[in-house]
């Protein structure tokens, strides 16, 4: 059956918006890579060292690039709600990074968080603010959990049943802490 004109236009519009989202995502962090690294060094634990915080910044970049706007989220149990993932956070992140002064300082970061009126770390990075989303990305992850507890809990790793009755093994300290 030939496609109706209206359907064809909707289809083209859909392609256009998907392309925009895709091209935006692949562009992250664009010319803000240095700012993102500086930010990571400032808001993540110093024990990770600069190499460690750079690595987290790189993982965050990949995370943002692989973000799928509109993907279905968990629809919940008990209180059901079908909710798609919010739009790509890239545009907001880029403008928020661009608004930060370089060289970056703690006061500027705190001022940006206060201005955005953010009270706590979000559950997931979904575009509210690049600073707290980057913090959430790291601090709510399994790696930070291990760092906090100084133990190889490896919350998100399939670890086998053996040895689970024992205290988790000590967490190998980052290079800087070992030194």
């Amino acid at each position, binding site marked *: 059956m030939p496609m109706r004109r209206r359907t064809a236009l909707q289809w083209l519009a859909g392609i256009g918006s998907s392309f925009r989202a895709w091209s935006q995502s692949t562009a992250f962090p664009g010319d803000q890579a240095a700012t993102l690294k500086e930010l990571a060094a400032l808001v993540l634990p110093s024990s990770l060292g600069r190499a460690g915080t750079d690595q987290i910044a790189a993982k965050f970049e990949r995370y943002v690039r692989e973000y799928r706007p509109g993907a279905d989220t968990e629809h919940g149990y008990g209180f*059901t709600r079908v909710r798609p993932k919010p739009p790509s956070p890239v545009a907001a992140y880029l403008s928020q990074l661009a608004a930060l002064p370089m060289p970056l300082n703690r006061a500027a970061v705190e001022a940006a968080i206060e201005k955005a009126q953010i009270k706590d770390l979000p559950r997931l990075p979904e575009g509210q603010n690049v600073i707290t989303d980057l913090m959430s990305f790291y601090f709510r992850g399994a790696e930070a959990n291990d760092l906090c507890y100084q133990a190889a809990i490896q919350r*998100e790793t*399939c670890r086998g049943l053996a040895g*689970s009755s024992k205290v988790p093994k000590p967490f190998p300290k980052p290079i800087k802490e070992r030194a």
Partner: protein
Amino acid sequence: MPTIESDVCIIGGGISSAMLAQKLSELRPGISIHIVEAGRKLFDLENRMEHRRRSLAYGENAWPGDFIADQPAKGIISRTMAVGGSAMHWGGTCNRFSEEDLRLKSMYGLYTDWPMEWADLEKYYCEAERRLGVSGEPSPLPEDARSQPYPMKAMELTYNLLELKKWGEKSGLPFWSTPQAKNTVPYDGRAQCIRCNTCAICPTGARYSPDFTFKQLLAANKIALHDQTQIRRLSVEGAGTKITTATGVNRATGQPVEFRAPLFILASGYAWSPHLLLLSRSSRFPNGVANRSGLVGKYMNGHEFISAFIEIDTKLYPGMNETHALISRQYFRCKPGDPYVRNDLRIWESAMDHEPRLRAKSGKLLLGDDLLNDWRTRAQRGTARVRSYYDVHPDRNSALTLDETATNKFGDPLPKIEHRLDAATMARKGATKQHFQTIFERLARNDGAKILSTSEGGYLDHPAGGCRMGTDPSDSVTDSYGQAHDHENLFVVGSPTLPSAGCTNGTLTFVALTLRSAEKIATQIPKHA
């Protein structure tokens, strides 16, 4: 319209359907069993590790495509409509009910008795545990005696649970490992659990899900599975009372389709089973089929729950195995004459109040080392998540009705569930709350514990009912085997038949009842089949 004929037509493709089809194929080898399910097949074990990763990282649905957009319903607790049903993402908890659940009227003068004996049900519990593959530690209470051991040894308690057990038992209450449909050794062609900590999306198949059973049955040509096919009506042709056809539509193609069989089994769960019976109204059956009693969709039930987070002076390591819990069945029994309350009692590890935070209590922003140090200081103490399911009884008008204001894309009214508790349950609410406050305080007496918060569930969990079983056709929809009083060739299996939902997880009971039904259903299949 294409017509598909079989010896048995099972409507619904969840855990009850899988267990029923498996057992029928054993009891009556060679018969044709057709299963019709509105949702999609999600037989993609190979993708589950990636779905799990995206679920953890992004909060995406770990079971993409497991719901039907135009089938929402008010009052349901899960949107899942797929082959395997809710048991694709269940936690695998396999607690049994207790004899008291079947004797509410005769022991306590409350609500109603179930039309079967405990000893009869108990043997089907054993069978359900064997078929699902349950690993468990037997309850130490003599009232929980079992006629057969668990098929697999219990899941090893993590360091966290061992610490929580020590703490919990200082209150004088015994706790042990919760039985689960998770493999502690390789079992039934499925792998041993490797503790991925994401049982809702088990990436290895160590936690039972019905897709494994369906795949085995399909590979052996023992069933035909029609997924994305929604049954919209059951019909009785002629002057008799037998259901003759199930008419539906293939959601993928939009084509109508008709199923004919000597036996129809409704295995569509607590919501969609009574819903289909009500939808099947006609001039001869203006209130739907199987509904001479007017009780289809009535006595919808479930259990209420209450939770507490209790901080203790013990270091725990959140994330070791968050879905495994301790259980105590200490309160499954209530002495006749005492104020009535029956509940389970579970303890999990938790990170509540020990998660990273952006601001100190004073409101000061925490960044980098400040945040980590604040988190480490708070993480010196552990948190127990404590929860009880407790027994409540439905009012007759605890109901699923057709919501004429909301329809799916075919114009069929969707279900609306409104739970109501009976007068006796409502009258003891205050005493029930006090009972739980006493338990939480009793636990909190040890190890410098502090109750951080308590909360009530706000909905009935593990819902059931809508086609309750009984001996009196004026007071029930089916007999104890799920055979409809009004239509000799129509059975309803699993959760809809429960008169009440007990005080612990329901799935094992749904399966046990289904396996019991299977034996009667097998005798009803014509000999020539």
